[in-house]
């Protein structure tokens, strides 16, 4: 039923922190768990979700034709071959931005809720119209950020806007975490970021070169059963979304050896 569908906005404010990669990987991971999931590319200006999912050559119609009623919804949806529980609703032409209104996004999402249990909306960067349209159609949100000052600042601004729009719950995914840098106190720690943003942590994703390899191929990491660090993190996030209690890994506890143990001791808070 429509009311049970979870409509989750995946946003960050700043560009390039990993929204689209998270959307693609979560979509695949949820579909693998047997839930009907649709990923909606709300980034009409700079669409990329199709590319990360390897579906760019299979697009016939887009959200634009659905809204113009020149095609049916099921004609525009691109079903993933390996994961039939997953579908993509591609973004239309960038010119859509000229006329697209919050109501249009709501209409599209309402149509999707009839067939899917999860609607993941890949939000454009920024806080302008594209963001506002996407927010209007969403119920809950995942904020993606990196342990970097500019990404955290922009995330904070977006959290404020989501709060005033009544989006609930808003959860945090900390992306591109480098445990060794945190151990050396050269990167904001997980606690630093959750304290500053005052959000519950849905999960963290370790920095992983395999992410680039997987985007080269258009096969999200969660698609195969490889056990790369980021893939593991993405799957855990999907399972937590589904209500499973999976303990968070603590990057400061990663890595053994005398040096790591010593650096951990040095991080003890005295006052």
């Amino acid at each position: 039923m429509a009311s049970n569908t979870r409509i989750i906005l995946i946003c960050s404010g700043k560009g390039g922190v990993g929204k689209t990669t998270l959307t693609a990987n979560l979509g695949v991971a949820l579909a693998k768990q047997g839930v009907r999931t649709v990923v909606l590319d709300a980034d009409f200006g700079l669409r990329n979700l199709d590319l990360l999912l390897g579906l760019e050559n299979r697009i016939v119609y887009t959200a634009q034709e659905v809204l113009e009623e020149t095609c049916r919804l099921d004609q525009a949806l691109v079903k993933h071959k390996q994961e039939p529980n997953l579908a993509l609703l591609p973004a239309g032409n960038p010119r859509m931005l000229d006329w697209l209104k919050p109501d249009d996004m709501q209409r599209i999402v309402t149509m999707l809720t009839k067939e899917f249990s999860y609607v993941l909306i890949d939000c454009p960067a920024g806080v302008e119209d594209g963001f506002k349209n996407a927010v209007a159609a969403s119920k809950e949100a995942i904020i993606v950020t990196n342990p970097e000052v500019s990404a955290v600042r922009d995330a904070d601004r977006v959290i404020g806007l989501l709060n005033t729009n009544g989006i609930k719950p808003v959860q945090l995914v900390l992306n591109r975490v480098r445990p060794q840098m945190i151990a050396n106190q050269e990167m904001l720690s997980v606690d630093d970021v959750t304290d500053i943003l005052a959000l519950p942590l849905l999960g963290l994703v370790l920095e992983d070169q395999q992410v680039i390899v997987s985007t080269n191929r258009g096969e999200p990491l969660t698609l195969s059963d490889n056990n790369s660090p980021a893939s593991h993190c993405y799957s855990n996030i999907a399972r937590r979304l589904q209500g499973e209690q999976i303990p968070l890994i603590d990057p400061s506890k990663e890595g053994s050896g005398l040096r790591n143990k010593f650096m951990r001791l040095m991080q003890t808070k005295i006052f």
Partner: protein
Amino acid sequence: MTLLEIVQKLLGRQQSSASKARERLQLVLAHDRTDLSPELLDQMRREILEVVSKYVEIDIDEGAVSLETEDRMTALVANLPIKRSLLKVNSQDAE
């Protein structure tokens, strides 16, 4: 402050970049979140004092109106020591 930061301080070394990032973020966010200019805050403070002093006599020198942010909630905190109630005085005058 962590053990490492204390050792670094004792050795006269630079503060770790993570704690520098933390400090800078906390400052810039406190400013971002309130979105109120100092002039506007001052005007609000004066108007609040004006209204309150219609009803009670307050110690203007001791009074403070400020914004405090904690856990994403920004609160307007007014601390206005009351010298005496003006209403009571007025009613006594009337008798």
